[in-house]
């Protein structure tokens, strides 16, 4: 039964991710005084791409064609670790947050390889930039997560969320720092403005898009879907760790449906915040990203220090 619930939760993750992408786009369009496409446009795009024949570069090796499957699977596995509507599911018990970061790194490794594989200048450029950014983003992310782990005395996400729920609404300085660190990392990792621009057509400015320029058809659909999943995953992490109220602690139909509504509400709110942020800032210069991620790391570090100094002695 629990395993079934875990499977349903992961499916929900995959099913809702395009909707979140559509919602963000909708908010952005409205904020820019534009008519927005339907919320379901990302689903239509994915279906359209799936029905198209993929075109593969002549120089591409087997790596190029299997990379989308690996990337998508790794992202789905990462999603299965994160509690979406309920805590204490068996999948979250078997893997902790470090495994989740590991899945991300695994997916990114193959994405970067695929970017290099076809041998175009843009692919290599994108891979090099992605690696630069992730090498700075990963420590910042782990620093924010360790702050939580130390506070909750576990690296298990369900455990951490349970800990926050048990403590009730208390303002912890460490969590405020960690929250901001995680938001900054999430923006960098999911390739949003101001670090990367998912909507650009300018090859020379691309990071994530540069690596997938040569993909088409179902390969592209899988990669797009995986990045939508990743975006949602970060949203859920932020929403459920820092604002876990509403998540189902018992597996009753009522609690679960309330959990689903709660996470949808939280994600919708986060998306509005993201869309507003993307509207008021321009993309930063590539060489500013290190300062930005350095700042995220610093916030994570401050979170940990403030936990040790202010909270741990209690």
């Amino acid at each position, binding site marked *: 039964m629990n395993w079934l619930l875990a499977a349903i939760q992961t499916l929900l993750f995959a099913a809702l991710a395009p909707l979140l992408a559509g919602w963000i786009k909708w908010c*952005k369009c409205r*904020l*820019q*005084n*534009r008519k927005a496409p339907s919320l379901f446009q990302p689903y239509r795009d994915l279906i359209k791409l799936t029905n198209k024949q993929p075109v593969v570069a002549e120089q591409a090796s087997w790596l190029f064609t299997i990379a989308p499957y690996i990337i998508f699977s790794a992202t789905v596995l990462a999603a299965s670790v994160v509690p979406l509507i309920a805590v204490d599911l068996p999948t979250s018990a078997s893997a902790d947050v470090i495994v989740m970061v590991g899945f991300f790194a695994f997916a990114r490794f193959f994405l970067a390889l695929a970017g290099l594989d076809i041998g175009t*200048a*843009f692919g*290599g*450029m994108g891979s090099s930039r992605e690696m630069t950014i992730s090498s700075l983003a990963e420590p910042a992310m782990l620093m924010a997560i360790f702050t939580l782990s130390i506070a909750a005395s576990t690296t298990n996400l369900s455990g951490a969320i349970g800990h926050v729920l048990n403590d009730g609404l208390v303002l912890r300085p460490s969590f405020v720092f960690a929250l901001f660190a995680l938001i900054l990392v999430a923006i960098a990792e999911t390739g949003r*403005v*101001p670090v990367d*621009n998912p*909507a*650009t*057509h*300018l*090859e*020379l*400015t691309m990071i994530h898009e540069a690596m997938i320029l040569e993909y088409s058809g179902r390969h592209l659909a899988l990669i797009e879907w995986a990045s939508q999943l990743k975006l949602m995953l970060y949203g859920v992490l932020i929403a459920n760790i820092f604002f876990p109220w509403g998540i189902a602690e018992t597996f009753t139909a009522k609690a679960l449906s309330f959990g689903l509504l709660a996470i949808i509400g939280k994600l919708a709110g986060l998306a509005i915040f993201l869309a507003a942020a*993307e*509207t*008021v*800032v*321009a*993309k*930063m*210069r*590539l*060489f*500013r990203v290190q300062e930005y991620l350095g700042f995220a790391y610093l916030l994570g570090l401050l979170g940990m220090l403030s936990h040790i100094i202010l909270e741990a002695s209690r």
Partner: protein
Amino acid sequence: MSASNWTADFLGQLLNSTITVEQISLPATTLWQIESHHWQQFAELAIQQNMRWVAGWAEHAEERFFINACFEKQGVYLLLRTIVHAAKPELPSQATVYPAANRSERHTQDMFGINFVGHPDNRRWTRHKAWAKHSYPLRKDFPVQSEPEAITPPDIDYPFVKAYGAGVYEIPVGPVHAGIIEPGHFRFQAVGELILNLEERLGYVHKGIEKIAEGRTPESLARLAGRVSGDTTVGHCWAACRAMEQAAGIEIPACAALIRGILAERERVANHLGDMGAICNDVAFVFAQMQFTRLRELWLRTNAKVFGHRLLMDRIIPGGVVCDITEVSSTLIKQDIVQLRKELSEIMPAIDLNSSLEDRLFTAGYLAPEIAAAFGTLGYVGRASGQDFDVRRDAPYAPYNQAIFKVALEDQGDIASRFWVRYKEINAALKLIEQFIEQLESGDILTEWQTPPAGNESLGIVEGWRGEITAYVRFEADNKIARFYPRDPSILNWPVLEKLVLNNIVPDFPVCNKSLNGSYSGNDL
């Protein structure tokens, strides 16, 4: 020093240095003819006089080639000509003295087979691989209607400049781009993200404008000129009409000149609005782009209402203009200006105060004033780097000779300067339109065309929205065009892009390019 003074002084100096000058009087232009072996020597003396190289072109007539170059100083234009014989078409290059002449001479070399001796870079330019080795499309014996033998093969073995060393890599970009823009190839040599060298390869939109202009009537040449570069249709059309009108010796009615002024300024405003939005879009500041796009669209709709064409194509014809401005239209135009000012006064502070945008635009894509001057950079690109030149003020023509306006100038030379120069120019243009509307009285908008004698020629110079546009026209018998050469400002502005991106990083190139926004079509002809 008064304007005509320097030509007299310079003439004296030339005579001292054994260059023989034959002075020929042309309508509205001074033409000096010299011996071909003095071609380079003349340039050396000209650059000492701080003369600016404006344009260069050639013409084939029986067994001879006429080679022309145009210079400017203090608003006075000087046309220089020499003749070489078809048996041995060569003369010393001016590109060694004036870097601005470089690509122009390569264009002449490709199209006429004229050899510029000592040229620093005689690789093919406009040619690509289109024509057989010894066939030159602008020679008279090359048929206009010739069928190309096959699809032009790709220009794959063009010898680009190479860079070697650890970590140096090459990024080829284009000619087909991801966005809907014109084709052009950019070859970067980079180390890490730093640009070591950029080389442009243009010519992908060569349409044979110069060749198909031959034999046209004035009306049809005006239509063709309006298609040299679609976004500058008013500018090119006006330059060509000015040249033809001067050659035919006709004066256009004052009313027509005012309407031409309104058309040109409206084109300037529309393009600057589009560009400012596009610059913001290239740094992912989409909000501003959407607003500017909206403003531009509203502006274009008024164009359609008042003049019958959104982009104002074919509104200018030889002898005048095709459409009058009624009382109702002028009210509409005035309301439009009030509305645009109001909207801009809301948007511009939001842009000015946005620090993330400021961070991207300031100091990026710096063009030093010395480089801008050396390359004869025009328009907003030159004016953002302190090049204080504007045909409307320095060589005024109707209706600008009756108008009061300020030439926008910035001296920081970066993308932000080129952005703000455009904004200042929009403001100046709005004031100009208001003045022209005020001066407008009902009257003729068209003078009857008079067939000019064969051989009459002239140079039409106007300030288009990108900068000075030069159009050369020579008539043959029966009211037909013998030679038409339009010099878009992009021809002089493209080369400085290679300079201003140096020491920038690769991902900043698109916004650098957009801040310059050269025309591919106007360059390739």
